[in-house]
């Protein structure tokens, strides 16, 4: 019998399972693939004793732009931070999300009031729109953006939007919106390892490796 909750059952069942498998498989593929790559041997004399410390430092120092660049990019950096923090709040603070994570990993933590979450989701959506406008209008950024950037943007935007719509029952019945929300988030999870969104995990390694190489050569990182 076809039922209104069929789509939701699909989203909670096979679609979720498939998305998680692709996410884990893809993330390990990317990560191991990058880590096992051959790096040219650096024959120069190391300038510091523990270059890896420089690598770890770089993970943090790159979190904020250098003084020289600040006047030009600081405001966009701030918008990006606003987006990332509010997104993290939405993903990690909403109880239904926590329950899903607990169901899969066994880890759990207290949730936040839904008012805080919906506010954060709104902020995330607005900042995402601003970042898209910036990307589409900035002459350089436009040149270096490709399908990956725009599609990834869409896949982050959609779960946020459908999540809010589901919460406020806007534009459909709750179970349909919830199903669409879950399916869009699952698409995001499956796409994540193979796109620029893989930076969620890879940023640590790319910064660490760059920082290690530079500090070995005595460069400021």
């Amino acid at each position, binding site marked *: *019998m076809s039922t209104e909750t069929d789509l939701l059952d699909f989203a909670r*069942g096979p679609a979720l399972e498939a998305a998680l498998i692709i996410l*884990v*498989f893809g993330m390990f593929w*990317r990560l191991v*693939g990058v880590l096992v790559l051959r790096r040219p041997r650096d024959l120069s004399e190391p300038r510091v004793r523990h270059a890896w410390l420089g690598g770890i430092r770089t993970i943090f120092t790159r979190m904020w732009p250098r003084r020289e660049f600040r006047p030009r990019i600081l405001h966009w950096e701030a918008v990006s931070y606003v987006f990332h923090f509010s997104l993290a709040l939405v993903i990690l603070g909403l109880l239904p999300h926590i*329950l*899903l994570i*607990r169901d899969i990993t066994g880890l759990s933590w207290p949730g936040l009031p839904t008012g805080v979450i919906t506010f954060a989701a709104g902020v995330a959506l607005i900042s995402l729109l601003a970042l898209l406008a910036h990307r589409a209008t900035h002459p350089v950024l436009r040149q270096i953006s490709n399908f990956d950037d725009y599609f990834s943007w869409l896949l982050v935007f959609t779960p946020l939007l459908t999540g809010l719509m589901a919460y406020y029952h806007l534009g459909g019945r709750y179970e349909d919106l919830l199903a669409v929300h879950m399916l869009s988030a699952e698409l995001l999870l499956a796409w994540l390892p193979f796109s620029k969104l893989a930076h969620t995990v890879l940023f640590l390694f790319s910064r660490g490796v760059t920082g290690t190489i530079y500090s070995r050569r005595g460069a400021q990182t």
Partner: protein
Amino acid sequence: MDETILDAFRKNGLSRRAFLKFCAATASLLALPPAAAAAMAEKLATTLRPTVIYLSYQECTGCLESMTRSFSPTIEHLMFNNISLAFNDTLQAAAGEAAEAARKEAMRKAWGKYILIVDGAVPMGAGGAYCVAAGQSAVDDLRHAAQGAAAIIAVGTCAAFGGVPYAAPNPTGAVPVSEVVRDRPIINVSGCPPIPEVMTGVVVYYLSFGMPALDRQGRPLTFYGNTIHDRCYRRPFYDEGRFAHTFDDEGARNGWCLYELGCKGPVTYNACATLKWNQGTSFPIQSGHGCLGCSEPDFWDKGGFYRPLPAATGHWPRGEVLGGAALGGAVVGVGAAALARSRQQAAAAKSAKEVNSPPPKEDSHEH
């Protein structure tokens, strides 16, 4: 048979005033505007008491048990004043062949006009042999009875959506009424069981105004227009992020939201949170248990009553499957890196060869 509903009221010693009061009470139960009570009274005063045939198939009689506890309008009220209940094998005194004969006679007389109430799913497996009464299978019985019905009210989740008999693995091939009968208007009054007042209310609504507005599951919007969650008195706790984590913790004692304990209120359409049960005394969430979602299709097969709504429904071994995916990904990653390495080496060897080999002729002039 030609007596109107108002006549029946009078015959049973009830005044016109009592009749109007009944209409007003029913209209308010149906959340209709006061003017509708007058319209209802006008219609019912001239409406002939319709014949009602109540058939039960794969069911537990819980729906009828529930219906008999309706307080407004009461089942007695309904039976004595509003309808002529020609057949219900549980409530009637007659049994066996006499009962069957009475049913046939009532159906013949009211052919094309009677209201058919069905509770229970209909087994299609083994040629319908899993549910046979008086030598006739449920499916044949329903097909025949439906032909003479003006409308069908599928009472309970089994009749409306298949319910328990339909649950996996559905050994009897049970189906809901709507899969057997396709050419008659069907009103689905789901619930396991449905709220008594919803059942009697729907009957009175149908008598007064005809087919009610239905949702896409064929349920009257009056009663199934909102989710439990939207009308739940614990909703403020949900919004504040206060949840009971177990059935016996501080949250449970404080009456906080039961979402974490598997409450399906957010995706369940029913009137429990507003009409409540046992004359408005309480409803499951008020008694401390999450909503099971019993008025929704397939509520037995949704991954477990105590699994939170956002949790995955599939019972797959999480650790093994995801660990396997990680291992598979790592193997592919190593393979990809090995491939890249050998390409790098080949490229390095090639460039080394180029460096060592004598420069091509045309480039031999000095620079």
